[in-house]
């Protein structure tokens, strides 16, 4: 056990997996200098430039060549720098990586991880701030992972790298600096399992990635009036239906909170599923809290409008209890 940042936990996970399996390698822009956020610092020194590959600004090729390299049995870790730039490589991820195994009748496998640093981060504006996890959860063949803590970034990245199918791995840029206890010898975490962050009796709040901190803060704000159960989904696809539904069934109330745009966000899938499965068993309607459907503006006071905050979450919880 030691205190690690979310960023260092991810780096350690990659380092351990690269030591464990010589077929694991990483590719992306500026990785030789540690990557744009420092997630790869020191790795080229240990593993050399062939396994920590500096690439041109060629997102389509970064993603597309990784598919080919995966089909011949290597395990690429693809660095997209910002999830927004992954939009330059969607054919390669969605038409190729996600479908190859199936289209070829199981002949090939695509064991790659595409890291897509996501979310809002100090006035990065509309092209450097998006949260598009709902897109990938909609695509057959993809696994979607959204770690919220250093320990999870360690355990989930290891699991993603060992997964034999393509994994969209969305680290949140605003979490790089947060620190937490990480067991450096812990095994990979199971993909598809949510984490019960806090037990509670009155309301279940399901969240993931950067929003977990806001939900915890909101729960503290209203400790007196409401006992909130917090579930961190961790993996969006496959999502942990059992944990979410059994919790919601017990508390009788469900709120889903995510940073992504609310309209068409993954919260809708959870709400729709819960509404159907728990029809007649809930004390209040299933609520969602997400960003308004507007591009993310630059100016801090406007950007804050896109960021669901603890006060809004607390109000929503109160609303469910009313």
């Amino acid at each position, binding site marked *: 056990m030691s205190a690690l940042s979310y960023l260092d936990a991810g780096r350690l996970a990659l380092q351990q997996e690269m030591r464990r399996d010589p*077929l694991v*390698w990483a590719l992306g822009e500026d990785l030789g200098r540690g990557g744009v956020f420092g997630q790869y610092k020191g790795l080229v020194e240990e593993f050399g430039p*062939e*396994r920590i*590959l500096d*690439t*041109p600004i*060629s997102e*389509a*090729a970064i*993603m*597309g*060549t*990784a*598919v*080919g*390299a*995966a*089909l*011949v*049995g*290597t395990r690429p870790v693809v660095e997209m720098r910002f999830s927004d730039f992954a939009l330059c490589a969607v*054919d*390669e991820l969605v*038409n*190729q990586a996600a479908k*190859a*195994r*199936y*289209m*070829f*009748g*199981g*002949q*090939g496998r695509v064991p790659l991880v595409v890291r897509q640093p996501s979310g809002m981060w100090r006035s990065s504006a509309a092209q450097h701030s998006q949260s598009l996890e709902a897109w990938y959860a909609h695509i*057959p*063949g*993809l*696994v979607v992972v959204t770690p919220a803590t250093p320990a999870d970034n360690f355990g989930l990245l290891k699991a993603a790298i060992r*997964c*034999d*199918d393509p994994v969209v791995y969305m680290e949140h840029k605003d979490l790089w600096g947060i620190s937490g206890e990480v067991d450096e010898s812990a095994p990979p975490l199971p*993909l*598809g399992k949510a984490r019960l962050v806090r037990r509670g009796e009155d309301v279940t709040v399901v969240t993931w990635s950067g929003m977990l901190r806001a939900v915890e803060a909101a729960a503290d704000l209203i400790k007196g009036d409401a006992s909130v159960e917090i579930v961190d989904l961790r993996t969006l*696809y*496959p999502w942990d239906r059992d944990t979410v539904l059994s919790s919601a069934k017990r508390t009788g109330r469900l709120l889903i909170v995510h940073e992504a745009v609310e309209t068409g966000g993954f919260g809708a899938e959870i709400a729709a599923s819960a509404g159907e499965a728990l029809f007649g068993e809930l004390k209040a309607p299933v609520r969602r809290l997400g960003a308004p459907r507007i591009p993310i503006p630059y100016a801090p006071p406007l950007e804050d409008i896109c960021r669901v905050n603890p006060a809004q979450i607390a109000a929503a919880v109160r609303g469910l209890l009313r």
Partner: protein
Amino acid sequence: MAGPVRANFDAERMLDHFRMMNRIRAFEEAAEAALKAGEVKGAIHLSIGQEAIATGVCANLQRDDLIASNHRGHGHTIAKGASPAAMMAELFGRATGTCQGKGGSMHIADFTIGMLGANGVVGAGILIAVGAAQGVKLRRERRVVACFFGDGAINRGPFLEGLNWAKIYTLPVLFVCEDNGFAATTRTSSLTAGGGPDARAASLGIPATIVDGNDVAAVDDAARELTQRIRAGGGPQFLLARTYRLKGHTAADVAAYRSAEEVAARQQDEPLRRCAEALTLNGVREDRLAGIVEAAQQEMAAAADAARAAPWPDRALAWADVQDIGAPVEAVR
């Protein structure tokens, strides 16, 4: 057309080419007939008239070498050694197909002979081939990856990104551009600026070798030279093969955008006929050639019969090979 009698003429190798080209031709003619009969449902793109390129290139690949193809991939796949029976079954959508009927013509693949897949997206195979070559290099293997694409694909970004990539990392890729003059129903000349595929390749540090793509011996010779360079560690090489697409873009396209005269003229120049001329000119007996043509047609007729008789994929297959974690289960609706 056929060129002079050659001193170093290798009749046996040329006969192998003739046999392979006829098998590809016969496969596609059988597939076309099955499509017209409504037995093959999805679109198919015929490489009739372009067989010499697949044949000449793959004659220089070993079994464990790799290829990535495009939407017009039947010839590449047969030439690399796939079973036409399994391929035909794939076109028919049967369980015995190369992909269990899940892919169809545009997604034929046979990993057992290093065929990494046709592709429904123009240009996408370029990046897959380059990446496969990078994987091969990382694994310290000595395999060559051949990548087939058309003259229309050079206007997509992946062409630039893939060639630049292969060159800076010195990857073992043979880029094969099949220049048949068309992108679907449009002449590529009107859409392509500058000097074309060879000029672009050269500007990316990969000088092109240009061959008459309807002369199978010429393609064979060029591919031999280029694959040798690659095996010697010379990095990516580029082959530009000029040819002509005798059929429509898809088997459903009547190609009204070009004259019957134009097509008739190019028929004179088609690779099977030229190969036959060269063989007879060099003393191979007509009946021997006729036997090869006959055998190819019989093989593919049998492939079609087998496909016709083969079972549809089991419903359960629809749910298989999606992904290990979170694979959907058949919903009871």
